[in-house]
């Protein structure tokens, strides 16, 4: 089934969509491109501005389409880009079995017949393919302009830093107040009090720290009532440490990332110092969380199957909750070879997907053995970044056990370690040996991502 560029032009909502699509219609932006044997469906994964790629799919019979990006435009530039790739045969759309995520989308589609092309009403706005294709001539830069811009940026940076330092003063003042007023009162009224200081931090450009404090009450409430004063001390203590660390090195990218904002994708990609790891990865799990500040965080956890390099990678994206529910980007358990670039850090974890190779059949590596002594793995990351909340871990052989109240615990095979598990374990997870377990340790609870067992790999929600 063939489409031509005319259809892409008609489908675009405006000229800027078309222009963006033109820049995406390049092989380097895409991976996993394929089509159904009958030529009706095409799909692909597009590297967008986030850490996770977007899954893009289209039905060529009626040009129905879907993309996992949060754009409000329909169709978005990624869909137009995929159609463009197809119309001009820029990359081969190899016939393949329809992936499950495409089938899932088909199952949810309703409305117009799948068998007849919908009438695409030509929109009134003039859209012009040629104009979209035209490359903007790069204006030669005036050295004076460049210098002026740099000076402006430096000034802005200084102002931001000043604002953050002021906000951190307010934060420490607030923490001191909580101690003076008593942690008992703080625990009872944590949500409102945290909201107030978080709002102050947002004004002071410490947005990431504000988000963290907004989530503090829910972490506290997840603890047993008797453990909450300890939990409050740990949480507030970490905030003091982070504030002090920022004062000491306000330009440190890693600390700034924990307080204010993260670098853009472009900055990380352009950074020659940034660690790049090209290896085989397994998708452990995806976590989607709606936060109190109205953002939804989407976290994909990857396990490095090779002997060397960072053991885990975390692809983290945020999008507004109002953009609606997004489909998954990865299927847990999938393995792929690909290149990741890590945000500069003493303990590289957060990363961006740079390139993902077409699926190979021969990815049958076992999970690696844990890299270090278990007790060290729990605490070592805190030496470098004592404010860290979540530590991904690869646990040695172990098994689930239950206490009298029905709460689940993970116990190591040698019996030396017993850790509380966040959720109630049911079914297979507590009825078999866990030869390897990938989990997140949050200082007081273990969240299981996936495990290897005699029954094969199991995910936490399987």
């Amino acid at each position, binding site marked *: 089934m063939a489409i031509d560029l005319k259809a892409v032009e008609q489908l675009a909502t405006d000229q800027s969509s078309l222009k963006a699509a033109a820049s995406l219609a390049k092989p380097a932006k895409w991976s996993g491109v394929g089509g159904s044997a009958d030529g009706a469906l095409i799909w692909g994964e597009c590297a967008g501005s986030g850490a996770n790629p977007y899954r893009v799919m289209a039905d060529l019979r009626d040009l129905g389409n879907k993309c996992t990006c949060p754009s409000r435009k329909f169709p978005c530039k990624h869909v137009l880009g995929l159609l463009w790739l197809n119309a001009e045969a820029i990359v081969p759309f190899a016939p393949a079995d329809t992936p499950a995520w495409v089938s899932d989308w088909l199952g949810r589609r*309703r409305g117009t017949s799948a068998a007849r092309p919908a009438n695409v009403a030509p929109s009134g706005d003039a859209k012009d393919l040629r104009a979209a294709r035209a490359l903007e001539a790069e204006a030669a830069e005036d050295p004076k302009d460049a210098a002026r811009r740099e000076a402006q940026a430096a000034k802005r940076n200084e102002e931001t830093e000043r604002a953050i330092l002021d906000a951190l003063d307010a934060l420490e003042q607030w923490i001191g107040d909580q101690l003076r007023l008593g942690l008992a009162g703080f625990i009872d009224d944590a949500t409102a009090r945290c909201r107030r200081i978080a709002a102050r931090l947002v004004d002071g450009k410490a947005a990431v720290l504000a988000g963290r404090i907004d989530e503090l009450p829910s972490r506290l409430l997840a603890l047993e009532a008797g453990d909450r004063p300890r939990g409050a001390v740990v949480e507030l203590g970490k905030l003091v440490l982070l504030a002090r660390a920022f004062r000491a090195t306000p330009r440190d990218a890693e600390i700034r990332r924990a307080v204010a904002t993260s670098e853009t994708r472009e900055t990380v990609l352009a950074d020659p110092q940034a660690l790049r790891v090209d290896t085989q990865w397994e998708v452990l799990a995806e976590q989607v969380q709606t936060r109190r500040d109205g953002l939804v965080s989407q976290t994909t956890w990857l396990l490095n199957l090779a002997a060397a390099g960072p053991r885990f990678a975390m692809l983290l994206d945020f999008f507004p909750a109002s953009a609606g529910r997004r489909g998954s980007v990865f299927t847990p358990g999938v393995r792929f070879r690909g290149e990741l670039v890590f945000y500069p850090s003493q303990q590289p974890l957060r990363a961006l997907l740079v390139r993902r190779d077409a699926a190979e059949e021969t990815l049958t590596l076992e999970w690696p053995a844990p890299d270090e002594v278990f007790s060290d793995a729990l605490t070592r990351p805190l030496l470098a970044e004592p404010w860290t909340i979540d530590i991904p871990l690869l646990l040695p052989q172990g098994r689930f056990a239950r206490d009298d109240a029905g709460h689940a*615990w993970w116990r190591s095979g040698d019996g030396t370690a017993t850790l509380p598990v966040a959720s109630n374990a049911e*079914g297979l997870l507590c009825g078999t040996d866990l030869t390897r377990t990938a989990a997140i340790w949050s200082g007081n609870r273990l969240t299981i991502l996936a495990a290897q067992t005699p029954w094969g790999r199991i995910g936490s929600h399987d």
Partner: protein
Amino acid sequence: MTDALIADAIYDAMGTVLTRWTMGSAAAPAASFWRAELGEDPAEAELRLLALSGQFLGIAVTAEPASTLRILPDIPTLALPTLPEALRPLARRILTAKKLAQGKTELVDFLAARGWTTHPADWMPEGGDDDAPDVYAPWRDWADIAASNNAAWQQTNDHINAGNWDDFWPAARKVALAELRRRDPSAARAVLEAKLGHEGADTRLRLLSLLSERLSDDDIAFLEAIVADDRAPKVKALAASLLARLGHGAGIGEDAAELAGFFSVKTKGILRRSRVIEAERPKTPAQWQCRKALLDGAGLASFAGALGITPQELIAAWDWNVDPAADTALINLIVATGTDAQVADAAKAIGEHDATGLIVALAPRLAPAERARQAEAAMNAHGIRFELTQAMAGPAARLNDPLAAPAGKALLAALRSDDAKPSDQVAELHALGLIASREGARRSLERLTAAGLLQGDPRLDMLRLNAALDDKGAKP
């Protein structure tokens, strides 16, 4: 002080520090070992102490289980292999799409009939899931053990007898007993005679129903004792119905005579005079009620006797499709109290008289192969839909070319029609996937994709699973 002594001192002080902060008083005076680190300014000292204590409490103090921990036994391996890894995502999707337990049971039954089981991460039965195929009995017992507080696993491979009864968990026990009944009916009955009285009413009911397999005159004395002595009315009723199947029903009582009054035996034809039983139309709602109550409580033999004919004659002479309520009631009567031969007669009569919907009610008494055969015949002759065919056929069906039947032609026409929607015919396509043989599923997929459905269409999931799955089940 050595490091260890300092650590102990810190640990000991933390209780006081936490208490002071909880109450809102200054805690630095309670941490004299850190005096140098905390400094002179009281407000600053509190913040520094907070940072240090937080780090210490976050690392050195982790939760300990309050009680001894219990480790559950391994989930046992089943007698049938788990689904091949490559097909698990497809099965998972079907399970997710089927919200109702009924839909899940259909898939689980289908897999068991083809010689496979689900992966325990995809689906496991609950302990009380009596509809799960027998092969899952060890998992049902495991679920019971997991739900209980202290039970330990006992697994025995022995044949069941009155002596080792208590070594079996309930689900495994029922399966072992069913197996014994198939092999040695008298031995199974003897075990029940010894043990049935100690079980609860629901369990008694389930175990007693196992006697319907290879039911014979040897069972009469035992069943009569249950009718006389059992405490639960439903267990008594089941025993009575089993007795009736052996021709030992109650005699023609007043009820049967009153019931017969609602029907009349007439003859028709002049040369070849044949009998026909006509239902007299009840005149008032009260009469309808009365007839229904009488039919619910009657036995086939006594009803026929009150009409002055044999049960076989009753089935042959019944006037089908005139009074649907009476038809249904008669079928229920036959299911509960008819002999195997009478059930077969009824199946034949239903097929001949185009009253195929009634087969579903009769199905539990038919052998799996017979069910499937009846369903296929009805599908071809009477144009019933795949959904009904599937309900009639149960998991044993393996139809080679279902799309050639009227239901298949109707389905293809509906899918091709101009106002077809992508969500149409979901149930029908799913049922088609359940009743087709592997080859039939392959052929159906070819024809459906040729008719315009996409290979990746999720409505075809069941067909795709069927076509990809090696059929290792016992063929009926």
